[in-house]
């Protein structure tokens, strides 16, 4: 999974052509750390059709707020730099996979 920060968020997400998944997380967020390995695993399965990225918000707080993310965890899906879908609250690995399938179909 590609690690994002404030220097590469624009080029890797907002200026990218295809589907991009962004996992917003923080080292202080236990539910995020719970979810992250599952998202990484999905990255191995769907990596060809979607670019998988993670953003540690402690390193890019303003970038996250700019994306209207004000709480964790959030998994957002972008196409051609535009946010198309977003998961918040209690996010299960199944919900992430279901959303990926829905968006790719």
């Amino acid at each position, binding site marked *: 999974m590609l690690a994002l920060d404030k220097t590469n968020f624009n080029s890797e997400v907002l200026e990218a052509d295809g589907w991009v998944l962004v996992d917003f997380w923080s080292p*202080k*967020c236990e539910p995020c750390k719970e979810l992250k390995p599952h998202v990484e695993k999905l990255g191995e399965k769907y990596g060809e059709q979607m670019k998988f990225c993670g953003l540690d918000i402690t390193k890019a*707080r303003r970038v996250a707020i700019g994306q209207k993310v*004000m*709480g964790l965890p959030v998994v957002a899906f972008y196409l051609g730099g535009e946010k198309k879908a*977003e998961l918040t*609250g209690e996010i299960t690995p199944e919900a992430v996979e279901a959303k990926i399938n829905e968006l790719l179909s």
Partner: protein
Amino acid sequence: MSTKIYDVAIIGGGPGGLTAALYASRSKLATVILEKGQAGGQLATTEEIENWPGTIHSTGPELSAKMLEHAQKFGAESIREDVIGIEADGFIKTIKGRNGEYKAKSIIVSTGAEPRILGIPGEREFRGKGVSYCATCDADFYEELDVVVLGNGDAAVEEAMYLTKFAETVTVVVIHEEGKVDATPVVAERAFKNKNIKWIWNSTISEIGGDGIVEWVKVKNINTGEVTDMATNGVFVFVGTVPRTKIFEGVLEMDDRGYLIVDPQTMASNKDGVYVVGDCRQKYLRQVVTAAGDGATAATVAEKYIHEEENFAEDVLEVDVPVLVAFWSPTSEASMKSMPAIEGAIEQLGDSVKLVKIDTYRNQRISNRYNITSIPTVVLFNKGQAIDTVKAAEISTDNLVSKAKALL
């Protein structure tokens, strides 16, 4: 998939589960902790811990990591697994997870609790957009911004103090009259002295709104009914917790709020060999220290359960000859008196029949399983089956000998 049979499988790695794991593994029981995320549970998302005896101050993540290390030191295994159900009938039980299935002789449920969702307009919609239930997760977003905390228990007041380290202003909305909070007095006093916390009394939040992210809340005075708009960047909701027990519906007994019901002395649930500890059970005080106490009790009771069941299987169910099982108690005069008649029968029958005595006071579970309502009672077993029950009045050497001979 592993076919290993554990002695103790612990579902949930919070303080209750980790203490159970420590006690079980230290008693040389094969122990596994099934935890879907990080060890520590709610403790791991608590910033300050100052009421764990012997540790003047610690952080939640620090104490969680130490508890896990302590359990692992004595051999407890820890597996990342999200449990979705259990099958708890019989001695060997099955725990179903998203990644696999596990077998264990006993199960300790320590799934804990999670923050309660209030259900006001905007609350769900703005989750991840300014509505939060976890200050340690989200505090970083609010540097130089304004936040509102709803609630007034220990969690609400402690997290409000934590948030003052990040946010420009922290306003706590309290439903009680001025000066009254549900938090422990020592916590409340500290918060009242904190100049960075503002208080709104007699009030609740009736709606959360904004354009994409939280921008305002409606604060409702419960006495006057008056509703005031208040600008804010975030809302932290701490209005109690709900137990994480959905996966046990229809299997374990629970109250109408979902808290699992156990015998408060032994942590035993309605299923033999299944114990429940910590915040997910019906109890008076939900704290790290009480969860740990529950865990120690459950592990000890689980150990006794395993030994009793294995002994009973070995001595009674798996033997080739008929077995007379005498349910008795040394404290009951009637059962003391009947012993010579029972011993006499065994003397006549010799090696063709075996005698096993079960103290009904010490082993109520097996007594209940065979519906022993009075003592002394003798139950005749053959090839693992209870064939005949002989109550006190019918216990005599001759009667027992003739009944046993009929089985030979």
